[in-house]
C-alpha cells in the first residue's frame, strides 16, 4: 500500500483507529448498560456516588496539560482497574444482586470483554508509541460491602467506564490527529483518517 507511511507507522495508525472505535463503542455500551443497570437496581440519578472508593475517577482538571504518554498511561491504568471492578460487579450481580437475570449478566460480560480489549489496546498503544505500560498492581476492590453499596458501586463502575471510554476516544482521536499532522508534514499525501460523522445523512442522486 503506497500510503507513504512506514509499516510501523501504518500499524500504529491502524491500531490507533481501532482503539478509537473500540473506546467509542465501550462508551456507548457502558452508557447504555449504565442506564439499564440503574433501572434494574432501582437507583436514582440524584443519588451521590462519591461514597464509593477505589474506582479510578475520570474527572481531570488539567487534561490539556497532560502529555500523550500520560494520557495513554492513565487510560491504560483506568481500563485495567475498571476491568477488575466490572468483573466484581458481574460476580455480585450473578451471586447477589440479580442472580436470575442471565441476559443482563451476558450484557455485562460482553462489556467486560470489550473493556479488557480496550485495556489491552491502550497498553499496545503505549508500547507502539515507545512507552512503558503501567504495572497491573492495583489495590484490590473492597469485598465486604453492603448490599446497597454493591448496587451503588456497580453503577459507579459503569459510570466511570463510560466516562473513561469517552475520554479515551478523545485521547486517541487527538493522537490520530497529531499523527496525521506529523506524517503529512513528513510525507506527501496525508492519509486522512475517518471523519465519518460528517458523512452522515448525505443525500445522493442518480441520473439515468
Amino acid at each position, binding site marked *: 500500500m503506497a500510503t507513504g507511511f512506514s509499516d510501523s507507522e501504518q500499524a500504529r495508525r491502524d491500531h490507533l483507529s481501532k482503539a478509537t472505535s473500540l473506546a467509542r463503542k465501550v462508551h456507548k455500551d457502558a452508557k447504555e448498560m449504565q442506564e439499564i443497570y440503574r433501572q434494574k437496581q432501582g437507583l436514582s440519578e440524584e443519588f451521590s456516588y462519591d461514597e464509593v472508593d477505589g474506582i479510578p475517577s475520570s474527572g481531570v482538571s488539567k487534561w490539556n496539560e497532560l502529555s500523550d504518554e500520560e494520557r495513554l498511561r492513565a487510560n491504560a491504568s483506568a481500563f485495567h482497574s475498571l476491568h477488575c471492578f466490572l468483573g466484581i460487579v458481574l460476580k455480585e450481580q450473578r451471586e447477589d444482586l440479580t442472580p436470575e437475570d442471565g441476559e443482563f449478566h451476558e450484557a455485562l*460480560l460482553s462489556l467486560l470483554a470489550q473493556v479488557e*480489549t480496550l485495556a489491552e489496546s491502550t497498553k499496545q498503544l503505549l508500547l507502539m508509541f515507545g512507552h512503558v505500560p503501567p504495572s497491573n498492581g492495583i489495590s484490590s476492590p473492597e469485598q465486604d460491602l453492603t448490599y446497597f453499596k454493591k448496587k451503588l458501586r456497580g453503577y459507579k463502575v459503569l459510570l466511570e467506564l463510560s466516562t473513561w471510554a469517552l475520554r479515551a476516544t478523545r485521547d486517541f482521536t487527538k493522537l490520530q490527529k497529531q499523527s496525521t499532522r506529523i506524517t503529512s508534514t513528513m510525507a506527501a499525501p496525508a492519509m486522512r483518517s475517518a471523519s465519518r460523522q460528517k458523512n*452522515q445523512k448525505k443525500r445522493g*442522486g*442518480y441520473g439515468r
Partner: protein
Amino acid sequence: MDMSLKQLVPVILFLYLKNLSSGHSCGIIIPESPSVELNTEFTATCILFDHCKLQFKTSFAKDIFWKFKQHRVPREQYRRINDSAVSVTVNYTSELENPLTCNVLLYSQLEQNIYGIFIKSGFSPEKPSNLTCILYQDNMELSDSISCSWTSGRPTLMPTVYTLKAETSFNAFRNQTNSNSCELKMVTVPIFVNMVFSVEASNVLGIAVSDVLVSDPVYLVKPSPPVIKKFIAENDFPNYLMVQWEHPLPSYIMLFKYNIRYRPKDTDVWTEIPENDTSSYIQTFSLQDLSADTKYGVSVRCMNSEGKGYWSDWSKEAFQITPEAKPSKKLDIWRVIGPADASGKRIIEAVWKTLPHFSANGVIKVYNVQVESLKTKDFFSYNVTNTTERLHLSEKEPYRITIVAYNSKGKSPDARIVIPESNNNTESSPVESIVPNSLDGQMHVKWKANTARVTYFVVDWCVVSEKGCSLVSWQYENKSSLQTILKGDFKPGIRYRISVCPVYKDISKPCFAEEQYFQENCPKVGPSIIKSKREKNSVELEWELISVDKLNGFIKNYTVFYKAAEENENSITVEPQDRKVTLNSLSSNTMYIVHVMASTSAGGTNGSQFTFTTLKYAPGEIEAIVVPVCLCFIFIVVIGMLFCFNKREMIKKHVWPQVPDPWNSTIANWLPNSPSQSNVSPKEPVCPEGSITNFSVIEIGLCDSKSFTDEYNKDSLKKGKYTSDEHSSGIGGSSCMSSPRQSVSDSDEGDSAQTTSSTVQYSTVVPSNYRGQGHLPSSTVFSRSESTQPLLDSEERPEDQHSYGNINTENGEHLPQSIDQDTRKQKGSYFKRPKPINEDSLLKLHQIEIAGQSSDSFKFCSTEDGGLPSSNDSDALHVDSSTSPGMHMDLESSEKMSYMPQLSGYRPQ
C-alpha cells in the same frame, strides 16, 4: 507295523496343532496397529516367541511367509533379522487388503499362522487453504460467533480433526470439527482489535496448519440487509421517487456504503445505481428520470464503508408508483385508403397504435380526431376511445388527419398524416422495388427508393386473404434506412403483403408492395380437377385454382400423376401459371386415375383423385365406318329396287298372285241346273297366263261313310263329270289365282291322277241331306268356287264356322241368318288374304286343316243335327250329313275328290 505308524501320524499332528493353537501366541508383528500413509513403504517385523522356538523344529526364518489376506508377499521383500525375527517391506497401496499375517509352513505342507495385524491407511492432511471468516449481524448487534471455512485439500481417508483458532493479543478461542467449516463462539466478538485466525488439520499421519488470517472482526462483518423505511413519490415530480432506509448497525460499530437497484415491477431487469453515488454513509436516495405512472421496486444492500467485509443481502423490495404525466410522445398513426364510391367519396381508415406505457404516462382516456380539408379548410374534430376511425372523405380533396391522446395530465403531441387527393394512380412511387425476405426467424425488408423527397418511410404489412388484405401493423423508418426488420408476430403459412410507403411532410406517397410468406407450408388442400376433355389417346385436364387462404405458400409447380390399372404411375410437371395439361400417349378405352399435386417450397399436397376412361374410337372414326356402310346399303337397296322394278311382273306373279274377288264373281249368273254351263268360266281371263298352278286334291270324307261319299260322288259325277282338262277354262280355271289352300277337285280317279300336277284347283262342295235320307235331294246345290279354299262350305254352312274353331258356337236360334251376314262373317273369319306360301307352308296348312276337321268332325255332325235350313232354301248350302257323320281328309286319296255341282244358285250379295 508300517500301517500303524501311518495311521498314527495324522492323530499326532492334530494333537500337536491343537496344542499350538490353544496356547499363547507364538509370536507378534510389530507394529501391532499401524497407520500407514498410502503409497509409502511400510515395514513390519514378525517375532517368534521363545516358548515356541522349540516347537518349530524347522528353521523359522526359512519357513516364514507373509500374506495380505490370501496373497503371499514375495520372499524377496523379506528380511531376516535373526532366527526368530523376519521383517517385510512393502509399498503400501490401497489394493493391499487386510489383514497382514505372519505364517510358517510346518512339515513343508501345513500352513500355520503366527500373528496378524490390521493396517489403517490413508493420507496425512494437506494444508488447509482459503480460510475465510464471517461475522454475521444478529439483530442490531454483531453476532457473538465467527464462522470460518476453508478448503481441506485431498481426502485423508481416515479420521481428521480440524482445529479452528482465533487469537487476540490477550485472548484465544478455538473449536474443532471434522468438516471444513467451523464456528467460534465467544462471549462477545472483540472488534477493533486484530484477531489471528488459523486452522489446523491433524490425523494419525500428520498435522498441517493453514496460513493465518489476521483481521479485525469488524472487517469480517456481513451485515443484515438495510430495512427500507420509505419509498415515496412526490406529486409534482412524475419521474422521481425517494427511498429511505435504516443503517443496519450503529455508526460507532461501523460505517456503511450502500448499493441501490430498482426496476419497473413488470420486468425482471434491474437498474443498479453506480456505487460511487452511494458509497457514502447515507440513508436516503432519490431515483430520478423514472417513467411516469409506473410501479417501481427498489432494493438496497450495504457493507462496511471501507469495502472490507461482505455485502449484505439485498433488502426486501419496496414498491411505489410514480405520478402520472401527460403523454410524452405522439401517436403512431397510419391510414388505409379504400376505393371511392359513386359519389366520389372514399373510406379513409385512420389507425393508430396505443402509446406504450412509458409514453402514455398514465391512462389514456380519449383520443381526439381532427380532420381538416387542406383545400376548403373545412375542419371538424371529435373524440373517440378506440384506435381506429373510419372517415368518408372526398377523393378530390387532400385532408390532414390529426390524432391526439389525452390522459388526466394533458395531451400528447400532435400526430398528423396528410391524405392527398386521388390522382388515379398517375403518381409514381419513389420506391422502385422492395424485397421482403424471411431470415433467422425475422422478416427482413429491403427496398430501393429515391429518397430526395422523402421524410420517412412507413412499412406496413397486411394479411392477404380471399376477402382482401387486412392491415396487421406498420412501423416508421428513417429515410436513410433502406432496410429494416419488421417488428411483428409473423405466422407461417400466411401470405403477407408488405408495402413500403414514403411520406413527405406528412403526405403519404404511393406505396410499393410485394407479397411474401414468413414461412411456407404445404398447401392445405390439393387442386381438384374440374374439367376434362377425353380423346382416344389423350385427355385434357383442367383443375381449379386453390384459394389463397389455403395455399400456405407460393405454388412452385403442379404435378399431375396419372395411372392406369396395373401400370406404373406417370407424372408430368406443370408450371404454376398453367392450370391445365394434356396427357398424351394414353391407351384407348382405358380407365385412368389421376390426381394433381400443388407444390410449394415446403412440399406438395395431393388433390382428390379423378377417374376417366379414354374413348374407344377417335372422333370421326365411327362416322368413317358407318357412312360407307350406309351408302353401300342404300346402293344395294337401290339396285335391288331397280331390279325388282324391272322384273316386277315376274315377281308379282310369284310373290303376289292376283286373287279373284269372289264378290265380283260372275258365278251368280251361272245356272246351277246346267252343270255344263259351268264349263264357261267368267273368270277365265283372270288368269291371263293360263298357267296352271299346282294343286292338290283334298278328299273330304263325311264321317266314316266313305263308301257313301264315294258312292255319292260317283252318282253326282255320273251326272256331270268333269275333268280338269276338259274344264280348264271353267270354274276351276279361276283357281289359278287362288291361294295354295287345297281345294277339292271333282274328278275321276284316273283324271285326278293325271292332273295332279298341272290342274287348277277346284273346290267341291258336297251337298248333304239329313242322315238317313235315302235319296239325294233334288235340290243339290252345285256352287262355283274359284278358290281352292273351303270357304264355300262356310259361306253356305254357318256350322262350318263352328267346326273350324269359331268360338261363337251358335245354336238353332241363330242359324236362320241371311246369307249376307254369313258371307261377311266368313270373310272376316276365313277369307283372309293368303300369304305367299311355299310347299312347306302348304303342307302345314294341310295338316292344320286335317287336324281341325278331324277334331271337329263330330261337332260338325251334331250341328247338322241341330237343324239345317231346308233344302228349299236357295241360299243355304245343303250338305248331306246323314251319310257323313264326320269329315275325312286323305291327301293320298285325292283321286277320289270330285267337283260337286252347285245345287243352289249362288247369288251375288
